[in-house]
């Protein structure tokens, strides 16, 4: 549920980038941050380890603009993908309005994508979110891998149907399309 203040005239949505370790979540966020006009974006905060692995989260707020006198904002977060950060990962999903699942197209990481997606479903369920009614976009990242996994293969195993996109986050390919898709899904499902 978005945060709405009738009084401050503000509506903010939370978008979370979820996925296994090293799949490219932080890279997505950094690319978006770099692409936005300066007046629209707040500072990017990264809580990471010395090896630049996300420890808790990356975050930045962005101003969509004014609509009917309301300041509409998106708060973008990534989660730490590494297995042992499960507790912090779950926390970041609290209050989320939509999720981008960043999958790693490296065939060696196929199973990690599956495990991570299943964890995400568990995490969502713990907040009483019905994943089937919830905005989720599946991004097949690292499409530059020569033997990248087939698009659609994760959905098959997971028995899910969600919109999917291909991306190479390091070059920015597909990154803006992804954020556009999830934002639109969130807005479409929003009731004032």
């Amino acid at each position: 549920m978005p945060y709405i203040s009738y009084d401050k005239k503000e509506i903010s949505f939370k978008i979370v980038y979820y996925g296994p370790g090293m799949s490219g979540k932080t890279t997505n966020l950094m690319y978006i941050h770099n692409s936005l006009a300066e007046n629209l974006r707040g500072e990017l905060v990264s809580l990471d380890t010395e090896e630049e692995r996300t420890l808790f989260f990356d975050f930045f707020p962005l101003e969509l603009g004014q609509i009917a006198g309301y300041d509409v904002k998106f708060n973008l977060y990534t989660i730490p993908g590494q297995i042992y950060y499960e507790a912090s990962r779950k926390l970041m999903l609290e209050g989320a309005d939509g999720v981008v699942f960043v999958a790693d197209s490296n065939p060696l990481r196929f199973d990690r994508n599956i495990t991570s997606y299943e964890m995400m479903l568990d995490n969502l369920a713990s907040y009483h979110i019905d994943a089937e009614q919830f905005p989720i976009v599946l991004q097949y990242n690292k499409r530059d891998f020569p033997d990248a996994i087939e698009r659609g293969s994760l959905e098959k195993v997971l028995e899910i149907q969600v919109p999917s996109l291909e991306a190479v986050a390091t070059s920015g390919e597909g990154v803006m399309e992804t954020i556009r898709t999830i934002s639109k899904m969130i807005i479409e499902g929003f009731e004032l």
Partner: protein
Amino acid sequence: MKDYFIKEKVDPIISGLCRDIKPITILLITKQGTVISEAGDTKSINTTAMAALTAGMFSATREVAKMVGEQQFSILLQQGEKRHIHISLVTEDAMMIIVFEDYRRIGMVRVEAKKAGTRLIDIAMAEKAKDTDAAFAAHHPSTSTNTNENQDARNKDGKISTPEFKEYALNLIDQIFVTKT
């Protein structure tokens, strides 16, 4: 989540607290990490980032609390060389951050934060009650004897129609999220 902290009622409490304890900065933030109200020096500190980080810190602490059999630690104190931070849970959804310099004032900070917290809870509770009344009135039109004035005004000037909102928002999304070429 809906915000029950009406700014015009909350701001005086926060700025009053600021006058009383003379800290560097005070922020009232939501559990999601948005700033509800702020007072003191808010220029030299990135309050948006601070709110997001503190909210994260607090939720992490809540999990740690559970591990040792506590529901939540209601106060977090971070002691630095020159500056210190006192963070207290106001309601389940909101917390107050006080950045101050003179550590000898900690007792006062604690007491005054608690007092202000109680007043903030009262405000939130009152708003919530109004909301419940309004929702009740909406569902039971025949019994709505005392329609709330405040609620009326808010609906009149604050209302946006959903289809219109969506159209504008979708438009902005297309404009903003473009790949630079």
